[in-house]
């Protein structure tokens, strides 16, 4: 590999999705002159673009038509009429959706900031679907008690990402496209920079900054059936963990109920928000038995568990019985073409089913990572369960855990979280720099260390196939730490992960060239999958209760007395398990005390 060099910036942000781009733009707006964003893929390829259904805010543009029931049509609210929604309601829905594990102070910040952020997107030129009188259109979504999903047909994330990227460009943000972050430099509780690989040339660079932020996204690729892009390998999460930063609530992985059968590709919750049904092989709308009130619009963890139960009990569809039907025929041709065009194309292209004419086969798919790098509501990364912030290190978006989603996320809240906390982190960073933060000297030679690591990876003869190791990991995570978990299977998963980590030491990188070596990247990404998967299973195994997306057949009840707390995991000694500690949840006992979670 060619030799390294050193680059400095005021701020370096890793990840160019919504969170990273908002932070970059905000920092630039607040006067930080030298903002750099690294992304291992071109910024517009970030997975934020895959979000479909909408972004939540209590704008009160739309309400259900009177006396038409919970699946009836919606109409715009005439000016002066009673609002049907409020930030308080949004807050309650989010808290309940999180199964009371969300930090309520952060949730309050997020929902209060929601309308402003949507209007800002719109003022920045984002193309939304509209009501007849020109306001932003809203639809129903799972777990929300009012229609507050602001949408752009069924490609909301796509329009939001393009809009914020354009604005970041307008504000002079430097984008390092196709630069892969390898390592985080944290010394004595202070973050000093990163080491990155320039994919084009294979050259290593040591980047120093006064502030570093990770906005690296989620980690769904640890599972076999996932809605996530190939790129979502949790690199930031693993790198931070390896650098001594703790990870929080990793065991909470959301399985989205409607991924395309066998592919896992997302079929937006909006399909159900617009009125779609879920049926089993007997044609029964089985959600009646699991969530009689909200039915298909119960929160995702509940619906996925219901689907999985139907499948496990033999009522699934498809040749292997692992699917469920998503029936949208009754929505009618016009509504599907108008509001759900993308998912129709996907259903036709990938499973050969036109939702206008037939039910679409779907199955639960690993979708969102509630866990991640712990931060406070200002985007500062925390060093421990006591909440002490690290100096100069920030995080936002799916890779972070504030926590606003707790044990389960409501749909449309992720686009909101990434935007709100990305913006907040940008402000915090700007203040930090303008208050006189200094560029920290490096004591070791992280560039050299990483160079040797890569050299070792490339040079060793190896006999193991990287993809095979990855596939075995995905299988064990899906089967043994998926929707339903128990002590025995999780123990098997941990053992398997240990064995795979051992085998990975003999993994072979076939491409030895310096130029655009994506084979090397795949190997690095697989090592990251192995790193954080262990943390997921360790946290899940320790948590002897069921809450939100973490569901155990051996501990089926929620246990507030012992488990109303966040899991914090630090990397242990080599070959030792993660060191677990626990952080209290911020709860307003007067306004939102924990309740039973029924839909």
């Amino acid at each position: 590999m060619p030799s390294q060099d050193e680059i400095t910036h005021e701020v370096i942000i890793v990840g160019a999705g919504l969170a990273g781009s908002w932070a970059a733009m905000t920092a630039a707006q607040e006067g930080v002159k030298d903002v750099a964003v690294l992304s291992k893929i071109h910024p517009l390829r970030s997975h934020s673009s895959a979000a479909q259904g909408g972004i939540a805010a209590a704008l009160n543009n739309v309400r259900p038509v009177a006396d038409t029931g919970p699946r009836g049509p919606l109409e715009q609210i005439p000016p002066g009429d009673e609002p049907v929604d409020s930030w308080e309601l949004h807050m309650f829905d989010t808290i309940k959706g999180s199964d009371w594990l969300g930090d309520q102070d952060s949730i309050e910040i997020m929902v209060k900031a929601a309308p402003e952020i949507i209007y800002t997107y719109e003022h920045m030129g984002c193309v939304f679907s509209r009501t007849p009188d020109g306001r932003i259109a809203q639809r129903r979504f799972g777990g929300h008690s009012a229609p507050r999903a602001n949408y752009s047909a069924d490609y909301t994330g796509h329009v939001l990402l393009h809009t914020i990227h354009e604005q970041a460009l307008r504000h002079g943000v430097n984008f390092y496209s196709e630069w892969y972050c390898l390592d985080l430099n944290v010394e004595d509780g202070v973050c000093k920079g990163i080491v990155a690989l320039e994919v084009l040339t294979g050259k290593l660079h040591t980047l120093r900054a006064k502030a570093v932020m990770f906005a690296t996204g989620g980690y769904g690729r640890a599972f076999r059936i996932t809605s996530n892009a190939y790129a979502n390998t949790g690199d930031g999460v693993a790198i931070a963990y390896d650098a001594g930063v703790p990870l929080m609530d990793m065991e909470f992985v959301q399985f989205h109920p409607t991924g395309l059968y066998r592919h896992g590709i997302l079929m937006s919750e909006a399909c159900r928000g617009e009125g779609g049904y879920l049926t089993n092989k007997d044609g029964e709308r089985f959600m009646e038995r699991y969530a009689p009130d909200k039915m298909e619009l119960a929160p995702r963890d509940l619906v996925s568990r219901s689907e999985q139960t139907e499948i496990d009990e033999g009522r699934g569809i498809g040749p292997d019985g692992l699917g469920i039907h998503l029936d949208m025929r009754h929505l009618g041709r016009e509504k599907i073409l108008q509001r759900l065009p993308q998912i129709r194309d996907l259903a036709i292209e990938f499973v050969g089913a036109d939702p206008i004419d037939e039910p679409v086969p779907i199955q639960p798919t690993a979708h969102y990572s509630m866990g991640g790098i712990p931060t406070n509501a200002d985007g500062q990364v925390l060093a421990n369960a006591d909440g002490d912030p690290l100096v100069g290190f920030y995080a936002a978006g799916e890779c972070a855990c504030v926590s606003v989603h707790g044990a389960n996320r409501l749909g449309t809240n992720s686009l909101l979280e990434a935007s709100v906390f990305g913006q907040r982190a940008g402000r915090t960073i700007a203040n930090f720099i303008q208050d006189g933060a200094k560029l920290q000297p490096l004591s070791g030679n992280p560039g050299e260390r990483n160079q040797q690591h890569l050299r070792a990876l490339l040079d060793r003869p190896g006999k193991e196939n990287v993809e095979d190791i990855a596939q075995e990991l995905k299988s064990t995570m899906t089967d043994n730490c998926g929707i339903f978990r128990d002590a025995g299977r999780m123990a098997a998963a941990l053992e398997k992960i240990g064995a795979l980590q051992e085998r990975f030491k003999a993994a072979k990188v076939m491409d030895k060239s310096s130029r655009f070596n994506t084979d090397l990247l795949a190997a690095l990404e697989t090592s990251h999958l192995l790193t954080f998967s262990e943390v997921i299973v360790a946290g899940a195994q320790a948590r002897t209760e069921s809450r939100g997306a973490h569901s155990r057949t051996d501990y089926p009840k929620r246990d507030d007395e012992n488990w109303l707390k966040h899991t914090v995991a630090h990397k242990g000694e080599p070959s030792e398990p993660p060191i677990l500690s626990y952080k209290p949840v911020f709860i307003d006992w007067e306004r939102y005390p924990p309740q039973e979670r029924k839909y």
Partner: protein
Amino acid sequence: MSNNGSQPTVTVRVQRFNPDIDKKPFLQEYRLTPQRDTTILDALHEIKTHQDGGLTYRRSCRHAICGSCAMNVNGRNMLVCNVPLRKHLDRRNRVTIRPLPYLPIIKDLVVDRSSFWEQYLRIKPWLIPPDDIPEKEFRMSPQEVAALQNAEKCIMCGACYSACTVVATNKKYIGPHALLKAFMRVLDPRDATPGERLKEVGTDEGAFRCHTIFNCIDACPKGLDPTKAIETLRQLAAKRQAFEAARRERQKSLAGPVPVSE
């Protein structure tokens, strides 16, 4: 034994080229036994991970929204993640995959898109709003959204740019992708600078350089129509001042409800 839908063995011919090592591009053949629903991207993934790790291409979302995987398959540009392999086999069960044409090759199927992004930046893709910003959203009617002709769906994949004969022969041409984006901003009632935009793109480096060849429409994986957008830009450029005046008028009522059509 159950039929899992597998097909006979196919030959995947891929153009390889590493400028550091090879003198010129060459076609390499791989053999593979796909499933019925194996996409071309799935096939590339299988080859890369189990046969030849050096085979290099861009990809991410695998469901046609990120725009990474645009390539040239059997002479036509497309995304490879949402097309079944079996649909693109010739009579000898072969498929030929090359990088997007007319762009410098970085390695194998990865091309240098610098000129593509430069043109995108050049037309100022961000909205330039008026000075008067309301507290809530600008009002934009569903008809005004429809007038954008789905241009907001564009994923900047480059299939159109790299299929365009004018792009191939003229280094200064703005390109269908950027012209489509410019069209979207020109028609957006919230943009306060349609006149400047039309001046920038209504030139012989822009909308008037298009020769109506239509390759862009054929290539677009999202079914978009850059040619129609370009023709609209041409017509608007001819009536620029009237259009600017109409926009100023429209912007007076951006904060109030749009008239509901009967």
